[in-house]
C-alpha cells in the first residue's frame, strides 16, 4: 500500500466499533450499489517513492527545451531567482496553510499578503492593491469586470491589438455571458505603439475602458499617458496589463501614466517559468475604487490589547457573503506565488531592482546592436525594455531549427499576428551572457543569408 494514511488494521477495527458498523463498506450505504460497482473497476497499483522519482525524472528529461539557450519571453520570463526565495516557499507553515480564515494563527500569511499588497501598489504606482489574482490574463479580465461595476451604463471595451493575445482571449471568455459587452480592437502603429488616431476615433460616450499592454506584447513601452488622456476626455477608464513587471523598476509606473486600474503577471518576479504556471496576478487601483475591487484583501487592525495584526477585510464584496451579487467568483488568492514575489522584491529591494532592470535593458540594447550590425533589422521600433521584434526570413522554420540545435531564438510572431510574417520576438535578460548573445546573432544572421530551401 503506497498511500499516505497511517491506519493499521487494529485502528480501523477500533474505529468501526466506535462508529457501530461492521465494515467501511457500510459507511457508503447511501451510495447506490450500481454506482459503486462501476466505480470499482480501476484498482491499479501505485508506485513506491523511488519508482515515482524515476518515472518523473524520465518525463522531465524529455523536456530538452528546458536546457536550451532560450530568448523566449512573450508573457513568461527567465530570470535568476535568489535561493532564499525557494527556501521560504518550502516552509510548510506557508505552503500547507490555507486562506487565513482564523487570523490569530495565520498572521504569517496575513502580514506577508499585506506586504505583497504594498509592493503591488507601489510598483504599479497606485493607491491600493488586492491579495492577488490567478495570473495576469485573468487579472486583466477581472479589471474589465471591475470597470463595468464602476461605469455600469457603458458597454464598449477598446482593447489594443498589441495586448498579449492570450490576455485578449481570456477577456473575451470572461465577458461573453454578460449583456452587451462589445469588445473592439485598436490597431498598433508602425512603431508598435497604440494607434492614437484610431483610438480617438473609437472612443465615445459608450466606451467603458481602454485596455493596453505596458510594455505591450512587442516589448514596446506603449504610450499610456497619451491613451489615458484620450480615455479620460471620453469619460472612460484606462487599464494597463504588464506581463514583464521588472520593466516597472525603470519605466514610469502605470498609475503615474494615468491608469485607473493596473494589472500585472508576477511570474517574472521570483517564480520559475514552469511551463507557464503558476504565476500570480497583481491588481491595483485608486483609493476611490477600492470597494469595487475583486478578490481577497488584507487590512491592518489591532487586537484587544492594542497589538498590530492583520485580517481579511471588506469581505462584503465577496462570493461567500454576496453570492450571485459578488464582485467576483474568486474565493482565494494565489498565496504562495504572491509570497514568492514578496520575498523576491524584498531581497532585490530598491537598489537591486533598479540595477537588475538596467542590466536587462543594457543586455537587450547590446544584443539588438549586434544583430543590427550583422544586418538583422528591428521592426515595430518604439522604445523597449528587454524584448524587441526583428525581421528574420522564415522565422517559424528558423525557430524550430534553432531549437533543435539548442538555441531558441525568440518567438515567431506570425503565429499570433498573421500580419507580421518573418518576425521574431526576442527577449534578453540577465540570464544571457556574451556567449549566448553570440549564438543568437550567429543563428539569426545566418538565417538572413540562407535561401528559403534550407528549411527544417
Amino acid at each position, binding site marked *: 500500500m*503506497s*498511500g499516505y494514511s*497511517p*491506519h493499521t488494521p487494529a*485502528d480501523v477495527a*477500533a*474505529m468501526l466499533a466506535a462508529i457501530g458498523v461492521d465494515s467501511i463498506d457500510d459507511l457508503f450505504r447511501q*451510495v447506490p450499489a450500481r454506482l459503486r460497482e462501476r*466505480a470499482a473497476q480501476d484498482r491499479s497499483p*501505485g508506485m513506491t517513492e523511488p519508482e515515482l522519482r524515476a*518515472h518523473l525524472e*524520465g*518525463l522531465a528529461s524529455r*523536456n*530538452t527545451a528546458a536546457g*536550451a539557450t*532560450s530568448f523566449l519571453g512573450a508573457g513568461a520570463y527567465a530570470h535568476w531567482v535568489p535561493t*532564499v526565495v525557494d527556501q*521560504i516557499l518550502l516552509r510548510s507553515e506557508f505552503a500547507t*496553510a490555507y486562506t487565513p480564515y482564523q487570523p490569530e494563527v*495565520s*498572521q*504569517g500569511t496575513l*502580514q506577508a499578503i*499585506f506586504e505583497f499588497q504594498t509592493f503591488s501598489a507601489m510598483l504599479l504606482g497606485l493607491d*491600493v492593491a488586492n491579495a492577488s489574482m*490567478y495570473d495576469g490574463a*485573468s487579472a486583466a479580465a477581472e479589471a474589465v469586470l471591475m470597470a463595468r461595476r464602476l461605469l455600469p451604463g457603458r458597454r464598449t471595451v477598446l482593447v489594443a491589438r498589441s495586448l498579449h493575445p*492570450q490576455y485578449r482571449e*481570456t477577456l*473575451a471568455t470572461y465577458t461573453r*455571458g454578460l449583456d452587451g459587452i462589445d469588445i473592439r480592437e485598436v490597431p498598433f502603429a508602425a512603431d508598435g505603439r497604440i494607434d492614437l488616431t484610431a483610438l480617438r476615433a473609437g472612443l465615445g460616450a459608450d466606451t467603458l475602458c481602454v485596455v493596453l499592454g505596458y510594455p505591450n506584447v512587442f516589448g514596446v513601452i506603449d504610450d499610456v499617458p497619451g491613451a489615458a488622456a484620450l480615455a479620460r476626455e471620453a469619460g472612460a477608464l484606462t487599464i494597463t496589463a504588464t506581463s514583464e513587471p521588472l520593466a516597472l523598476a525603470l*519605466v*514610469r509606473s502605470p498609475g503615474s501614466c494615468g491608469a485607473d486600474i493596473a494589472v500585472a503577471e508576477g511570474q517574472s518576479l521570483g517564480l520559475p*517559468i*514552469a511551463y*507557464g*504556471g503558476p504565476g500570480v496576478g497583481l491588481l491595483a487601483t485608486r483609493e476611490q475604487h477600492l470597494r469595487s475591487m475583486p478578490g481577497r484583501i488584507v*487590512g491592518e*487592525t489591532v487586537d484587544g490589547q492594542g497589538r498590530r495584526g492583520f485580517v481579511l477585510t*471588506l469581505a462584503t464584496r465577496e*462570493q*461567500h457573503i454576496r453570492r450571485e451579487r*459578488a464582485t467576483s*467568483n474568486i*474565493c*482565494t*488568492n*494565489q*498565496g504562495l506565488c504572491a*509570497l514568492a514575489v514578496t*520575498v523576491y*522584491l*524584498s531581497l532585490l529591494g530598491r537598489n*537591486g*531592482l533598479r540595477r537588475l532592470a538596467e*542590466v536587462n535593458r543594457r543586455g537587450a540594447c*547590446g544584443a539588438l546592436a549586434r544583430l543590427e550590425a550583422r544586418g538583422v533589422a528591428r521592426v515595430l521600433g518604439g*522604445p523597449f525594455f528587454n524584448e524587441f521584434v526583428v525581421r528574420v526570413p522564415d522565422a517559424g522554420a528558423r525557430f524550430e531549427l534553432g531549437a533543435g540545435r539548442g538555441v531558441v531564438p525568440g*518567438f515567431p510572431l506570425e503565429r499570433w499576428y498573421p500580419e507580421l510574417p518573418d518576425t521574431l520576438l526576442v527577449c534578453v535578460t540577465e540570464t544571457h551572457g556574451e556567449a549566448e548573445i553570440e549564438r543568437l546573432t550567429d543563428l539569426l544572421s545566418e538565417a538572413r543569408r540562407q535561401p528559403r530551401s534550407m528549411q527544417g
Partner: protein
Amino acid sequence: MLLDEPLIFERGSAGRMGWAVPERGEGPAEALPPELRREDDLAGFPEVGELEVLRHFLRLSQWNYSAATTMYPLGSCTMKYNPVVNEALVRLPGFAHLHPLAPEALAQGALELLAALEAGLCAVSGLDAVCLQPAAGAQGELLGMQIVRAHHVAHGNARRRVLIPSSAHGTNPASAALCGYAVTEVPIDARGLLTAEAIARVMDESVAALMVTNPNTLGLFEEEIEAVAAVVHGKGGLVYMDGANMNAIMGVARAGDMGVDVMQFNLHKTFSTPHGGGGPGAGPVGVRSLLAEYLPIPRLVRRGQELVWSEDAPKSVGRVRSFYGNFGVLVRAYAYMTRLGGAGLAEASRLAVLNANYIRARLEPVYHRPYDTPSLHECVLSDRHLQAHDVHTLDVAKRLLDYGFYAPTIYFPLVVKGALMIEPTETESRETLDEFIDAMLRIAEEARTTPALVRDAPHKTRVARLDETRAARRPVLRWRPPAKPAD
C-alpha cells in the same frame, strides 16, 4: 515563544541590497527618454540584507498554523498531507525551466504528463474529456458554466436560469451570475438532501443547468442524484457538479455514472497539492463527450507519435488564462495520483470517510447534529447545545486554536445555524483524531463550567481576537512611507 517582527518596509538601511545583481551587458545603454523613466526611483522599496529577509519570513512562517504542523480540519477544503516528495519532483529543471512557447517536440515529457493526468481524471470521474487550464476551483466553475452556456447557445437558446441547492457554496451562484444566469435556489429536504421532486417543481426549459455538489456541503451523498439528473435532462438542461468534495468518492462513485455532464476538480484538495495559504490551486474541468467541442483552447492532441497543442476548435469557449494552466500544481497532482494508483485513491476515500464518521460518532452525544443522514468525508455539527451558556460556534473555533488545532469551517453551510464543518481527511491517525475529539469535548465542558474562558479565546496565540470592524471601517491596506517632518 514567538518573536516579534516588523514589516519588511520598517527594516533596513539606505543603500543596502539583499542580493548582488550580476553585472552583465555591454556598455551603457541608450538612456530612456526622461518622460518614460520611473517617477520615484522605487522610493519606499526595502533596502535590506539577505539574512534580514530570510529571518523576516522565517519569523512570519512561525506565526502560522498549517496542515503540516497541526491537524487542519477545515471542512470542504481537504487539508490532507501534501507529500514532500512532490516538492522535489516539481523542481526538476526539466519542469521548472521549461518555457511554455518552446517547440512541442522538445517538451514531450511535459505533454505526456499532462495527457496522463487528463486520462487519470477521466478514469476517476467517468467523464470523457478534461481540460487542465483553470487555475482554481472557482475558475473551473466559471469555465464549466461557460461551456453550459455555449452548449445552449449552439442549440438556439442560452436559457436564463440556473438551479442551485440552498446548501451550495457561494462560488456556485457567483459563477452562474458571471455567465449571465439568474439563480433559482432549490430547498433541500429534512434529510439534508436534494430530491427529484424538488427539482421537478422548478425545472423547465428556461433552466440551463443544475449546479450540484456531491457529496453535498453537509457531507451527505445525494442519493437521488441519478433521478435528479434525469429530471434535468428531461427538459434539456445540463448537470454541473462541483467536485470540491470528491475526496469522499474516489473509486466509490463516478460523476459520469451519476448523470453529470460537466464538473470541476479541485486538485489542491483531492489530489493533495499544497494550498499555499490561498493558492495556487488547479481546477480542471471534465465533460461528457457531447460538450468536449466547447473546451478551451489549446487542446492537447496526439499527432502521430507526438503530442501537440491544437487551436483548431471553432466551437471552443476560448481560454480562461494564459498558457496551459498551473503546470507546477498539475505535476504535483499527477505525482500523487501515480503514487497511489486507482487502488490507493479508493483507499484514501474510504479512510477519509472512516475518519469523519469516527469524529461524528464520538462528538454527536455532546454537539448538536442537524441531520442524521450518514456522513461521508466530513461531518457538520452545530453550537445549539452550547447556546444556553452563551457560547457560540466562533468561540469553539477560537478555543480549538489554544488546543493546537486549526478550526473547522464555521457558519457554513448556511442551512445550518452555527455550523461547524469538520473534515479530518484520511491522513490523520487515530491518535490525532482522539486528541482533537478530546479537545472538542473539553471545550463543551468548559462552555458549561468556565464559559468566559471559551468566549475570550484564543489565549495562547500571537495575537488575541482582532478588531475586524475597525479593519473594514477604516481600511489600512498597505504600508506607506512615514510623512517627512514639516520644514
